[in-house]
């Protein structure tokens, strides 16, 4: 009875909606249009920093200060970009960043796959305790360990090397492990049990059965880890002292300190640092969004 009533009232609601008066409909369209205008205005505002960056990177030093603002410099100074490389060893910074980022990202992916497998697909006493610990460390502010970890790396002579920037990633980080573990839990256990019956050990099961199915999780971890290493500022700031070892963010700051009056060159250097990230974002946006959403929904 009640379901029939509910169905009937749904039907009448739908009918009512279709019979909406013309005035209501035009009000609706007007509201929609206003919202669209608002969204476009917001989009323009959110684009200002990047457009300013791109525009200033193509100006002469004189054009930078001209009022009103010239958004499209005429003619564009493409030579600003090679000039950045001529003034400073920016190519060196790119190589350094690439090294740290690749080593760190590979470490994050491998360690999170291994540990997540140990937490999702092997039953052993203490596993749940370790997982609880992992979830706990996700909430801990990392700042309390900054000083003692620095002292530790100083004692073993790693300050002034790249090691402190990527070696810790090989020990796994809580969020990446969590992300991969949750993904592995969605894979049916029959897969690894069948492989076990065929005589495969856990390493073979992880490598041949589980890893090939973890594509989206691996992509999310790789992207997050890439961005974290690429954008890392505090790490290079406290661990690197030799100018030739600087990474892009640190090199950019150094560049700004030395050539602060040459805003067009500083902006060209910034543009060089921003471009790969934006390219990655356009290329892999869906994995990116998935990862962020996952982080939020997992937080429930």
């Amino acid at each position, binding site marked *: 009875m009640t379901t029939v009533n509910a169905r009937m009232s749904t039907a009448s609601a739908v009918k009512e909606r279709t019979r909406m008066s013309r005035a209501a409909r035009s009000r609706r369209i007007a509201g929609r249009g206003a919202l669209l205008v608002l969204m476009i205005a917001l989009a323009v505002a959110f684009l200002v920093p990047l457009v300013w960056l791109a525009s200033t990177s193509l100006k002469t030093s004189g054009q930078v200060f001209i009022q009103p603002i010239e958004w499209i410099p005429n003619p564009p100074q493409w030579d600003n970009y090679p000039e950045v490389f001529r003034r400073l060893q920016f190519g060196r910074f790119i190589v350094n960043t690439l090294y740290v980022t690749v080593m760190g990202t590979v470490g994050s992916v491998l360690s999170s796959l291994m540990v997540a497998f140990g937490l999702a697909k092997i039953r052993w006493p203490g596993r749940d305790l370790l997982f609880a610990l992992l979830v706990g460390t996700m909430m801990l502010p990392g700042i309390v360990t900054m000083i003692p970890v620095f002292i530790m790396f100083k004692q073993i002579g790693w300050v002034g090397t790249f090691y402190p920037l990527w070696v*810790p990633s090989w020990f796994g980080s809580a969020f990446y492990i969590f992300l991969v573990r949750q993904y592995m839990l969605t894979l049916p256990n029959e897969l690894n049990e069948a492989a076990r019956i065929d005589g495969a050990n856990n390493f073979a099961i992880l490598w041949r059965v589980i890893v090939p199915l973890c594509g989206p999780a691996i992509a999310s971890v790789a992207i997050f880890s890439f961005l974290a290493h690429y954008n890392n500022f505090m790490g290079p700031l406290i661990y690197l002292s030799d100018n030739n070892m600087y990474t892009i963010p640190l090199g950019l700051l150094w560049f700004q300190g030395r050539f602060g009056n040459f805003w067009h060159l500083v902006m060209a250097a910034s543009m060089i640092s921003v471009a790969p990230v934006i390219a990655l974002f356009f290329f892999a946006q869906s994995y990116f969004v998935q990862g962020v959403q996952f982080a*939020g929904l997992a937080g429930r």
Partner: protein
Amino acid sequence: MLVSSPGWASGQPTPNPNGAVSQEVGAVAYAQTSQRAQYMTRSARRDLRDGLLFCSPYILGIILFWAGPMLYSIFLITQKWNMLVPPEYIGLGNITRLVGDPLVKKSLLVTAYYTFVGVPLQLAVAFGLAVLLNLDIKGQSVFRTVYYLPSITPAVALGVVWLQILNPQYGVVNAILGWFGIAPIKWLFDPVAAMPAFIMMSLFTVGPAMIIFLAGLQSVPPEVLEAATIDGAGNWGRFWKVKVPVISPIVFFNLVMGIIGSFQVFTASFVMTRGGPQNATLFFVLYIYNQAFELLRMGYAAVLSWVLFIIIMVFTTIQFALGRRWVYYGGEL
């Protein structure tokens, strides 16, 4: 052992009149599990070995990068150490300094201002954008990309750009204010306007929170909305009475993460102001950095880190306690 835990639970001696009986049941259960344990020994032992082996990177990581450093950090509280000569025991010297240090108070106030004014505004903007992105309009993926872009821009580059945009003479912000007849503001050079400028900048990088809100709005079950419509709820009612309560856990998550992150802000102020003008943007982490790596006061910096750690933990705990009142978790009644 997961398998044996029910047996153990029933085997606990209970102070009820049937104590003897439950003891007996417990003994039987124990005998059964020990038999099973013997039967499973080989595979159980292999699972234990492999479990520890696969998790060993993280177990080592916790020891090397969390537990060890935290213990060492406790030791540092009583030390005076510039890392050039051996550490010196000074008892409560660092704590005394902390209590009498006016810049500690200043930097805590600066950080609190940024957090308690900034985070609610960030959440409001992120939520507003998510609501707009959830409308049935064509081209939403383009809008989503554009709103997200500043959030992925490397912080140093973004800081350098903002220095320009906020420039009092030729920056775009003052140019726009000029259209409305507002006199130029000195922004990062003015102790009063500097923090509002930082908060304004933070509103441009709310992308992650926005995406999480959007996912939440999209996860509201359509049948729940339909039921509300049948009960006579309009657009407004459906939004505030159905959607908002359903996504309240996500609001809570964003609030907790926003506050934890906000207390640890560093890069923007380091790149743009180094704490100035007149310490108006001396964020607490910047102060810790200055003490540790400019003045080489490792012991004092460790004490400051503990202060921040405790503050963050206290606020997180308070939020979880208060969250119970207003956060709605599905399935709980």
